């Protein structure tokens, strides 16, 4: 059985006249790095809230269909029962930070899971270092920059070592180099620790290269799904309004002009540069 299995899921927020997600079915296997993209308001965030039961347990509203995560029927379990399985990093870090120091914020989840003092110290330090906030660990999460807050939010979820980490535009407030570092951390956790990653992003320029499973949503439904190289070369993806990485676009523009760079659609500037050097006979 797949790690996450969603069957015919539809959900309407209380007071809303239309469903935010409509008849969504989806399978995610253990160890995948899934990237979800699509126009703003297409239901990406709502779908993420289903993985740990925030929808419908916290948000209420009307739900139909099935959500199974790690063999657990999410619709019948409490959100706190899902905390060990699914870690959710929100778009807006302020929504999840509350402690008096960064360190305490990061330790909070572990405390609640009943970790020992030594174990907590070890995991918290490791996570603080991984996310590059070790040096500011004693400061208040409310007097640091938006970018630093985002790191704290990611760290507090990572510390619990969930099977699945769901990140909803986790680096939107970060400068590009810091964002890249965070994505590298997430990618390493995925490759080395086998943590399943579900990342919601508009900026495929920064993230397409990490994924093996790309999902394009539009108007509450999944419109395209599969290998990112196929999906990003599909004209429909562009028409839905997905921002195709510039390297991928440039490859397509050159191909249209009859410049043959091979069949592999590049997802990064490195890949495209290699293909160009090869075609120019420089390798």
């Amino acid at each position, binding site marked *: 059985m797949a790690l996450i299995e969603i069957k015919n899921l539809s959900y309407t*927020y209380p*007071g*809303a006249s239309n469903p935010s997600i409509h008849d969504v079915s989806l399978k995610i296997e253990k160890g995948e790095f899934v990237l979800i993209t*699509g*126009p*703003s*308001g297409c239901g990406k*965030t709502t779908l993420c809230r289903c993985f740990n039961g925030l929808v419908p347990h916290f948000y209420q509203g009307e739900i139909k269909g099935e959500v199974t995560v790690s063999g657990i029927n999410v619709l019948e379990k409490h959100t706190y029962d899902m905390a060990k399985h699914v870690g959710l990093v929100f*778009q*807006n870090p*302020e929504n999840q930070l509350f402690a008096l120091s960064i360190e305490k914020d990061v330790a909070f989840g572990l405390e609640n899971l009943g970790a020992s003092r030594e174990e907590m110290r070890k995991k918290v330090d490791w996570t603080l270092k991984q996310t590059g906030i070790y040096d500011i660990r004693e400061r208040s999460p409310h*007097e*640091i*920059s*938006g*970018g*630093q807050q985002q790191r704290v939010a990611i760290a507090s979820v990572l510390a619990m070592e969930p099977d699945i980490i769901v990140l909803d*535009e986790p680096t*939107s*407030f*970060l*400068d*590009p*180099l*810091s*964002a*890249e570092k965070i994505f590298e951390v997430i990618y390493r956790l995925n490759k080395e620790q086998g943590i399943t990653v579900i990342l919601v992003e*508009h*900026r495929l*320029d920064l993230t397409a290269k990490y994924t093996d499973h790309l999902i394009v949503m539009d108007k509450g439904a999944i419109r395209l799904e599969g290998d990112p190289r196929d999906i990003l070369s599909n004209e429909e993806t562009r028409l839905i*309004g*997905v*921002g*195709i*990485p*510039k*390297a991928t*676009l*440039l490859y397509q*523009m*050159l191909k249209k*002009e009859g*410049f043959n760079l091979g069949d592999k659609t590049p997802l*990064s*500037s*490195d890949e*495209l*540069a290699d293909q*160009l*050097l090869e*075609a*120019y*006979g*420089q390798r």
Partner: protein
Amino acid sequence: MIEAENVHYSYPSKVEALKGVSLTVKDGEFVAIMGQNGAGKSTFVKHFNGLLKPTVGTMKIDGVATTQSSVAALARNVGFVFQNPDHQLFSETVEEEIGFALKNFGFDSKVVEERVTWALELLSIAQYRKTSPFLLSGGERKRVALASVLAWDPKTLILDEPTIGQDHEQKERLRQFIMQLQSQKKTIVAVTHDVEFVAECNPRVVLMKDGKIVADGVGREILTDPAMLELSSIVLPQVAQVFTKLSSLGLPKDVIDLYEAKALLLKTKARLGR
């Protein structure tokens, strides 16, 4: 016109966020302020509408020091869209949110109605007119915040991270709108990390680091200087990344535009007889 002269600013916690910043932005200019988290970008632009006043130095808007006028008076001319929309939204419907400042500025109800409709359509949120802003997605809330400022048509617009949470189409609309504002001689200052967006707009770029300005010039030059960008925790735009790797072929490195890139790469193909 925005004139900052040797602006220093220290937060009450004594952290010195600005350490002598001087910058002049003329009417009709589009300036992107970039730099790493904590460089002082947001602190700096909060001086433009008097939200913060310099600890040392002077900040003038159209020749008047911000210490000589109130935030309310400055707001009429300098519209500020915050990084986080939740810091500025509070009304029960999107319509009320957008009309709020207009009413406060004393426009009559017919004008308010017209301006609200115009702003709703401009940012493609007309379908949410009667909806609570808090039921909208992050990207949509950001557009409500932007609409509520655009509605009163300020002469200068300060945008703190305007592209966060925006999809490709919305970014393109924002780019076109900024160009349109520029042609009307409006001044736009955007604090942004979005290198691809800046590469597409190619504005004047100001790089900040540790409370100071470290570079100031045209986007094409600054965005293709890897050493300078790394210093500010910014990565090269993707097109420039490709050209940096092709430097052995004698191609220029300062390319950020897709169409220029395409033309250069095809020309190289012909030159190498491939």
